[in-house]
């Protein structure tokens, strides 16, 4: 086999407390499309950032055309011939197409003045090779997202890129636009350009790629030739691990339905979501990022408005909350996915944070009763074993796990018994995770009911009584825990089943 264009040898990257990549090996041949797949958090983004020169401090070696290559700056990488097209577009919307393509490399006349005519001609030329009929002088903001993406590809071509990394390029494209992009990727391959294609969409992956590499939990699992690989095999590689033994069997789920939603719809985010939540149950919600899970949770809690749907709480028909205050009165609590951004007022004390929803719920008592507040908060700090020297400690000084417990304490203190947890263990260490799981088990034993959104399969499978799976805003399956296999869940989540 010829020398690979790019070879990664034992790449290892550690963030404080998290091993993001461990002994990752990859190679890409010239003129090859290599698909890189893996669950959320498998380490794909970290790998891309390392390749793009946006992240330093890794161990291992990168060989570019057989030579060791260590880039610390994004422009060095681009100069070497690697271009990255990120999920979020990075063009300057108020500049023209040609200006964006040649940003920082504008052709100049003598005296340093930009040669506009030449720049526009060159831009037209490269756009033509992509079969794009766009005026090079048009503003980028006037283009569709798909065309803006193609501008970035055009930019990569003018830099004579040998390898183009595409990070979920089709996530915001329509079906027709996806087809166009696929054609372009194939054309690039014909021109001998390699593409590292990161995606969750197996349809494209099987259509486009020559080989598929799988990452899981920061580790390199393996590579298969696409023509020999089956979907089941790839799914098994993505999820293939035994469910953590820490999870304990529970039988706290009762017959009584505490929350029932029907046909919940918010156009563009999610549609026709219906489910029942039982007393003492943990209902897991699985799906990929962007499946509409968080939006649905925010809709139920009244943070965002929904377009239609109905809700029954404790057997009574209720209107869907128009504000979090209303949800709070119905006895719902919400642990948002980003505790620092939405869960806590970091510069306030633990005590002040915990009592906020209780104060908001209680319309009486203009004056705060400090004695009662202290008593309540101390009670919950003890019950949730939040480790802090005092309740006057500022929330920003706590560890991630303890911060998460403070957010949970907020809702327990306000007597909410239906709890929506959005990624409750995101960004906290293993020990704290186990504590949160214990806490959740204890809560359902005390007749609380929990809806848990989670992107981690072991967590969903280990903690849930039932699992609802969402894909592109639709509810695609509702499985009993015992009936669900990881491959099945991943298959539904990626839309492959």
């Amino acid at each position, binding site marked *: 086999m010829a020398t690979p264009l790019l070879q990664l040898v034992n790449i290892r990257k550690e963030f404080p407390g998290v091993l993001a990549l461990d002994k990752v090996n990859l190679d890409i041949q010239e003129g090859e499309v290599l698909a890189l797949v893996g669950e959320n958090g498998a380490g794909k983004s970290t790998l891309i950032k390392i390749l793009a020169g946006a992240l330093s401090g890794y161990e291992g070696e990168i060989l570019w055309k057989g030579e060791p290559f260590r880039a610390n700056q994004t422009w060095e990488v681009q100069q070497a011939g690697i271009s990255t097209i990120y999920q979020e577009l990075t063009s300057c919307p108020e500049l023209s197409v040609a200006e964006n393509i040649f940003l920082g490399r504008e052709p100049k006349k003598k005296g340093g003045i930009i040669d506009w005519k030449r720049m526009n001609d060159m831009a037209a030329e490269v756009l033509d090779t992509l079969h794009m009929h766009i005026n090079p002088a048009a503003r980028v903001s006037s283009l569709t997202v798909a065309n803006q993406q193609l501008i970035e590809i055009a930019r990569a071509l003018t830099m004579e890129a040998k390898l183009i990394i595409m990070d979920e390029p089709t996530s915001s494209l329509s079906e027709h636009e996806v087809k166009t992009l696929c054609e372009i990727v194939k054309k690039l391959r014909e021109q001998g350009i390699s593409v590292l294609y990161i995606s969750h969409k197996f349809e494209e992956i099987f259509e486009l790629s020559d080989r598929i590499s799988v990452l899981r939990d920061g580790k390199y699992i393996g590579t298969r030739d696409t023509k020999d690989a089956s979907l089941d095999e790839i799914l098994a590689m993505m999820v293939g691990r035994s469910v953590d033994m820490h999870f304990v069997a529970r039988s706290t789920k009762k017959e009584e339905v505490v929350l029932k939603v029907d046909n919940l719809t918010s156009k563009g985010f999610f549609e026709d979501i219906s489910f029942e939540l039982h007393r003492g149950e943990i209902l897991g919600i699985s799906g990929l990022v962007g499946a509409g899970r968080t939006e649905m949770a925010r809709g139920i809690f009244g943070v965002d408005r929904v377009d239609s749907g109905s809700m029954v709480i404790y057997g009574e028909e209720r209107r869907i909350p128009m504000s979090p205050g209303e949800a709070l009165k119905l006895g719902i609590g919400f642990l948002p996915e980003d505790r620092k951004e939405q869960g806590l007022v970091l510069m306030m004390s633990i005590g002040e944070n915990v009592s906020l929803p209780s104060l*908001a719920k209680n319309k009486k008592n203009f004056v705060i009763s400090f004695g009662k507040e202290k008593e309540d908060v101390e009670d919950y700090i003890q019950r949730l074993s939040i480790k802090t*020297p005092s309740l006057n400690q500022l929330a920003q000084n706590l560890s991630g796990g303890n911060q998460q417990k403070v957010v949970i304490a907020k809702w327990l203190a306000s007597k909410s018994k239906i709890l929506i947890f959005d990624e409750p263990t995101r960004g906290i260490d293993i020990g704290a995770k186990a504590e949160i799981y214990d806490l959740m088990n204890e809560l359902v034993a005390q007749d609380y009911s929990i809806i848990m959104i989670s992107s981690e399969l072991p967590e969903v499978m280990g903690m849930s009584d039932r699992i609802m799976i969402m894909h592109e805003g639709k509810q695609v399956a509702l499985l009993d825990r015992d009936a669900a296999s990881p491959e099945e869940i991943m298959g539904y989540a990626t839309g492959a089943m």
Partner: protein
Amino acid sequence: MTKPRQFWKGTFAKYNYQFVLLLFLAVWFVVMGIVNHSFLSMNNIATVVTRLSEIAIIAMGMTIVVIAGGFDLSVGTIMAMVPCIVGLAYGQGVPFAVCLAFGFLAAMAVGLLNGVLIAKAGFQPIIGTLATMTALRSLIYVITKGKPISSFPENYMQLAHGKLLGIPIPILLMLAFAVFFSWIMSHTKFGRFVYATGGNIKAADIAGIHTAGLTIKVYVLSAILSALAGILYSSRLISASPDAGANTSFDCVTAVLLGGTSIAGGKGNIQGTVLGIIILNFIINGFNLIGINAYWQMIFKGCVLLAAIGYDSRRKPGFKMVKQKTA
């Protein structure tokens, strides 16, 4: 549970900065007392404090707005508008109590407009209040035809010049408001929610706080306090000028920041602002007494503002973390 030592440590950290301010004020009094004999005279101190009461009352409202994560440029304009409305109406023979009601209602309407522009229409506070400030100033010139108004009742001046128990009424009002609003901010749900909203509006929303309504209330409160200050100042001069209060919002913000309130919201208190106003005014007073040209004094205010904001950004939560990340 709270150990006394931690309590004192916490309290000291919280008021540490304000102790420094107090110390500075004390040093300034000693130094100026030596340099200039009239500085420490009862007459001088009473005059300065009476004058600063007006702006201190506005600055209290501004403090609450800033803690809630906002900013109010329109305070000076409201201060100018209210006495003009009151005086014009009284000149038309309207009973004085009704005139006052007109004035305060107009101020509340402006506060409501500010609040709605910011909380409901989503304008940046500085832009929303800049718009009302500009439009309102023009409205004042239209209704007054650009001339000062001096049609006030005979005993109107008693408000600013009268004394109770030997203390000028404006000082008493300022002290009463300071005590009242610092209690409101530290002991009531309203105060707690203002801190929460300014500290993290998303988290406050999710905690069930009606942050939009709260924001509106805060701007209305600021407008009412500005209106009251307008009444005090027109009572002091027995005249209402359409030009009044041009620099008021900036002077207030300088004092608010100097007093330790964070421009990013969520942090600060009323006591600090009152201290800030007192320091600024006595420094200016000292400069005047030793004959430093008034034109130079603006430079000093600018420097104070920079120093206060510099200090503020240095103690923002996570400042060190951010530094490390980018390094």
